[in-house]
């Protein structure tokens, strides 16, 4: 639909406002997003490529990269499944406690990550609720990889569900009921009908979830213990290097994270474009 401009006067006025707003948004973006991004890469490459490569291939850096990848490889699929299950339950069934579940899904977003981390320490730490039992069985969660995974799963839980719930809500359950009435099993219905309907939204949620899983600092910092070569993830490694005045090293590793952010952004844009095309074709 094209809107008609009521009069030339008010349309020039709105045109000026438009330009002003766009300029403001661009200036804001440049200052708060582009400038830091450029700074990260230029700091990282300040002394040339060799120190950059050295910093990135240093054993501690490699270990941090490996750990970050492992964390993401475990927590992202877990949250994909959790997020799908939660969205499915919330949108396709009605049950008591549904609103509570909706609120709980948002909890990781509304609590400071540091507090989330502390909750895990309180639960699983040496002095924590389950601490004695864990140490009696030789299990170590806090200051070890399992703790980092737990904290990351908790922090990144909402991404997939938040993406899927509005989408599945809008799509309703007619498609699923049609499939069931045609004799499809629950699994066939999910695989052939629900999943294709939500695939782009799901991919988008997974992407955001992954970006956060790799980038999370607060909660992970609390439970990790910062053991070099063992429990340091990339963001934690960056902080350590920075505190040791190894700026090139810090920015080199940081630039890898920044590159991840850029890749996520590009993929997200591509997905949104596909997504729009897709939902556009529906109506």
């Amino acid at each position: 639909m094209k809107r008609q401009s009521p009069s030339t006067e008010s349309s020039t006025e709105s045109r000026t406002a438009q330009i002003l707003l766009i300029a403001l948004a661009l200036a804001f973006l440049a200052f708060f997003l582009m400038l830091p991004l450029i700074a990260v890469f230029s700091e990282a490459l300040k002394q040339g490529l060799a120190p950059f490569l050295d910093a990135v291939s240093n054993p501690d850096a490699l270990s941090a990269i490996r750990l970050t990848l492992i964390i993401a490889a475990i927590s992202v699929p877990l949250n994909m499944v959790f997020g799908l299950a939660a969205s499915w339950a919330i949108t396709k069934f009605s049950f008591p406690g549904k609103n509570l579940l909706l609120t709980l899904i948002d909890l990781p977003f509304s609590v400071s990550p540091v507090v989330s981390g502390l909750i895990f320490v309180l639960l699983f730490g040496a002095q924590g609720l389950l601490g004695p039992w864990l140490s009696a069985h030789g299990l170590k969660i806090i200051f070890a990889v399992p703790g980092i995974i737990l904290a990351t799963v908790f922090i990144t839980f909402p991404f997939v569900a938040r993406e899927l719930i509005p989408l599945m809500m809008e799509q309703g359950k007619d498609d699923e009921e049609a499939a069931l009435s045609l004799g499809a099993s629950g699994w066939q219905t999910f695989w052939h009908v629900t999943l294709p309907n939500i695939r782009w939204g799901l991919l988008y949620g997974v992407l955001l979830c992954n970006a956060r899983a790799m980038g999370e600092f607060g909660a992970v910092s609390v439970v990790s213990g910062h053991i070099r070569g063992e429990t340091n993830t990339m963001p934690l490694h960056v902080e350590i290097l920075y505190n040791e005045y190894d700026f090139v090293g810090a920015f080199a590793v940081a630039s890898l994270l920044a590159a991840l952010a850029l890749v996520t952004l590009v993929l997200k844009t591509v997905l949104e474009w596909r997504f729009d095309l897709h939902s556009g074709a529906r109506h």
Partner: protein
Amino acid sequence: MIRVQNITKRFGNYPALHGIDLEIQPGEFIALLGPSGSGKTTLLRIIAGLEFQDEGQVYFNGDDVSDIPVGKRNVGFVFQQYALFRHMTVADNIAFGLTVRKARRRPAKAEIKARAEELLRVVQLEGLGQRYPGQLSGGQRQRVALARALAIEPGLLLLDEPFGALDAKVRKDLRRWLRDLHKQMGLTSIFVTHDQEEALELADRVVVMDHGRIDQIGTPEQVYMEPATAFVSHFVGETNRLPDGRHIRPHDFEITATGSDRVIVDNVFRKGGSWRVEGRLTETDTIVEIDVDAHEAPPTIGETVTIAARRARTFSSAGDR
């Protein structure tokens, strides 16, 4: 034969259906007719097995299917909003019910393809099998939905406001066509509508529902000519309700010098094949609508005429909800 016995359904505290009894013979075309919120969809979904009753039973050919889920009842269900699978081609949509069958009962690939082609021809969409639902018009989509439901050779076809989302012309064409299809294929069908014209035109029998109850079950002729309740009389066709409790259809009035009620004429216009006269009873100011034959001269606006009723009904207050 389909038998629905004493069905009651509540949503929370809200009673959507109470004590519904209904029998449907093989080959019948049944309309569930009623205003929005009267429980038509709920009843249809309970018959399908998409929803479950709180009390009562559903029998298919004598078997109690009350606890059997939709996938095992062998019913075809057509949704108001089509509910086509948008990522599948039209042909794949139609074939869906066959392709998801267990290997033991699944026809060979070529056979499934032939069956989809045949159904495309039945719903007059030959050559559109490779399109996606998004590339079809509303009427075409609804026909694909119908073909998809027919592919499983359902014992019972259920349609929820199948023409609700279509514009008037397409609607009319499509419902005639559905009526023929129902006969040709020897289907047993139930469709939901809030449009009395649609129900009267299509159905062998009309089930008139109001507030979760059945007010009347009858042929279109019976429901129109002998409405069982005041509600049916008003919902199916038009009815004037006079202060003395008589219910009179506009075409059952005649303007005659020997009439007993005096009416001031407020408006006269063409309606279909006759004149529609709108006026007020002089005594009570009650608004009345009167039909006058097209070839007779209608009264003029402002004139006072006397009218008589050729035919009137009264309803006991129990039925007068």
